[in-house]
């Protein structure tokens, strides 16, 4: 791969001196290779590793905004674990992620299969499907907030006029269960296109011959999906699920805009609680401990998922 000095010699770059020696040094494989990695490495270190290290340090210290604190060991972790609000947040995060992810997988694959069919305006439809993913989350969530508004909810208005519910209808953002449903709905709405389009890419790559062979063998459309499509989609799905788990678990915008963690902290996720405690409340130590709590959980998810993908 490396462009060695021989090549340059062959090209007639013979002039001796400091410059050519420098060039020779630079074009050694180990130097050049690392040189190419360096910018990315610098970015990763300064924007990921450094803040991560700082967060770990904060979480182990009595650090307040604007006033550095002393090392306190695991006191912050003990403190948050004994706090009811935090335990509630852990429960919320698991419910939120599990339900939202399941819905996204099922609906995403379904949508991808539909999109793979030859229809008119295929490009237009595929483009439109991506819209929720393209619009800035904060903006679209504000729209949803208005749709779930207690007084002017278009969702309730429609359902009441269709005779599906009796007035005044559910108080979407004010009751624990409905509020959780609301944030999950918005998360699914927003995350679905990513699922569908990525799955679609995997679907398109499935060779037609397999389907033809299955058809010859008399497989029904259901068994064609179950025995041909799904097994071949597995690697793509595994990666998408991996990404989506991380995104969903670490969601912030949707909850922050729709409910600010309310009612009664029943929709708080790790990120929103960490923001409330760490930045609004100024307790950086505890805020970091809350935020870091997802790290081992997500670490385990990544580990098992990657192992599964490799095994395949």
């Amino acid at each position, binding site marked *: 791969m490396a462009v060695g000095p021989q090549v340059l010699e062959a090209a007639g770059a013979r002039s001796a001196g400091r410059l050519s020696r420098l060039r020779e040094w630079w074009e050694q494989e180990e130097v050049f290779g690392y040189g190419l990695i360096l910018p990315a490495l610098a970015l990763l270190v300064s924007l990921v590793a450094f803040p991560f290290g700082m967060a770990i340090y904060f979480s182990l210290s009595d650090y307040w905004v604007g006033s550095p604190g002393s090392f306190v060991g695991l006191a912050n972790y003990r403190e948050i674990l004994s706090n009811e609000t935090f335990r509630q947040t852990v429960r919320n995060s698991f419910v939120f992620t599990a339900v939202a992810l399941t819905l996204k997988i099922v609906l995403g694959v379904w949508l991808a299969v539909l999109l793979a069919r030859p229809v008119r305006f295929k490009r237009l439809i595929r483009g439109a499907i991506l819209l929720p993913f393209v619009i800035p989350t904060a903006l679209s969530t504000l729209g949803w907030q208005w749709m779930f508004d207690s007084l002017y909810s278009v969702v309730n208005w429609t359902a009441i006029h269709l005779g599906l519910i009796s007035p005044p209808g559910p108080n979407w953002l004010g009751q624990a269960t409905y509020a959780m449903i609301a944030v999950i709905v918005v998360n699914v709405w927003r995350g679905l296109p990513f699922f569908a389009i990525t799955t679609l890419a995997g679907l398109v790559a499935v060779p037609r011959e397999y389907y033809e062979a299955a058809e010859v063998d008399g497989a029904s459309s259901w068994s064609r999906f179950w025995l041909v499509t799904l097994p071949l989609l597995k690697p793509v799905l595994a990666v998408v699920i991996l990404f989506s788990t991380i995104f969903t678990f670490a969601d912030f915008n949707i909850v922050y805009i729709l409910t600010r963690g309310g*009612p009664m902290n029943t929709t708080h996720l790790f990120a929103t609680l960490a923001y409330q405690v760490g*930045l609004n409340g100024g307790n950086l130590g505890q805020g970091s401990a809350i935020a870091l709590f997802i790290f081992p959980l997500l670490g385990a998810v990544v580990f098992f998922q990657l192992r599964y993908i490799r095994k395949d």
Partner: protein
Amino acid sequence: MDQSAPRSLDRRHFLRTAAGASAGMASWLALRTPPAVAQKRELTFLSWNHFVPAADDELRRQAEVFSKANNCTVRVDTVAHLQLPAKIAAEAQSQAGHDMYRSAGADPFLYENLHANLDELVDKLGKQYGGWYPFCSQMCQTASGWKAVPWFWVSFPATYNMAHFKKAGFGDSYPKTWAELLSMGKVLKKQGNPVGIPISHCSDAHSTYWSVSWSYGAKVIEADGKTPAINSDKTAQVIEWYKELFKDAMEPEVLSWDDAGNNRFILSGKGSWIHNPVSPYNAALKEKMPIADDINHHNSPAGPAGAHSAPPALSMAIWKFSKNQELAREFIQYLFKKENYDAWIVASNAFNHPPLRHLSDHPIWAKNPKFAMLPKEAEFAHPRGWPAKPSDAVQRIDDNYVLADMVAKAVNGMPTKRAMEWAQEQVVRAVKGQLKVS
């Protein structure tokens, strides 16, 4: 003329210029003063998006006039009020950002060590305009001096729809106590016009809770600022009152409101009574909504322990890290010039109340009978946390929505005692984390 002449001249010229420039730059760096051309100072001010946008326009206009007069630039940046605490925290943490900012709540206590001392300025303004209202000064005067200048406060009266009250048979009367609000509210709800107090994650929910709880003689923290006092018989009374009001006079939507929820509620024509600054009325006037005629205000209701109010009071603080502290002081003083402050009150249409007694006699409050009672609110106002001094612990109780969540838990079926115990535990945590201010 040989051809090398101009070149050598150029080179000599270049060398001379370069040497001069380097020497100049070196002296500039050594003296740490910019050259005369770059001496136009820039003062940056981080404020909020005012609920009455015209007030921000007026503030920017005054900033521009000040800039021209003082050969400087004053930049006013505004962000949404809920984002301000995080932005301020980030500036405190990085010791960089704006020169001054709109502080609120316990900010002067939270960042006591990072704020410039403003004793002289506050003293001068106080003498000039008849003294500061006690609740405003309590929020800015720390043990180490004035760490902010009270800027304005926002009266938090009751806003009610007179037509709904008349229709319900109450004539011209309105609830003078929280108990009356409950009894009238029951009738009003049956009529289809419930009352509304937010029990949710928003700042209006705190303002009302503090007000009601003081009116019943309840406390959250003892005067020492350390002993939690929320688990008490008095608080139980407050919660029972909330429960009954929620069940018989309000609708569940109050559980989901943001700060604009109650504004929408009264302006939609459905609501009959809310506890809020005068912004809905101002919005109705501005949009020429017919409902403006029906809307009126009355002072915050009283309870067995009298009337008490927890109006938001805002201030201006200067960061210690600012290089423009003197200019910032001059600018603040300029904003407090009578003609400037008056113009700003008018722009806010009576929303901004002066923290100084002599500035409060502005005709705007006398001219419109619907505003006449507003300045009176200052007489029974306290900073949050009262009888304790404002502190980061009190701030944290608000930031974590402890009070609103306690009430929300109770109205959703948790036994009152259990809800108070939960809140007590949260207050203990808030106090425990108190900053060790040196």
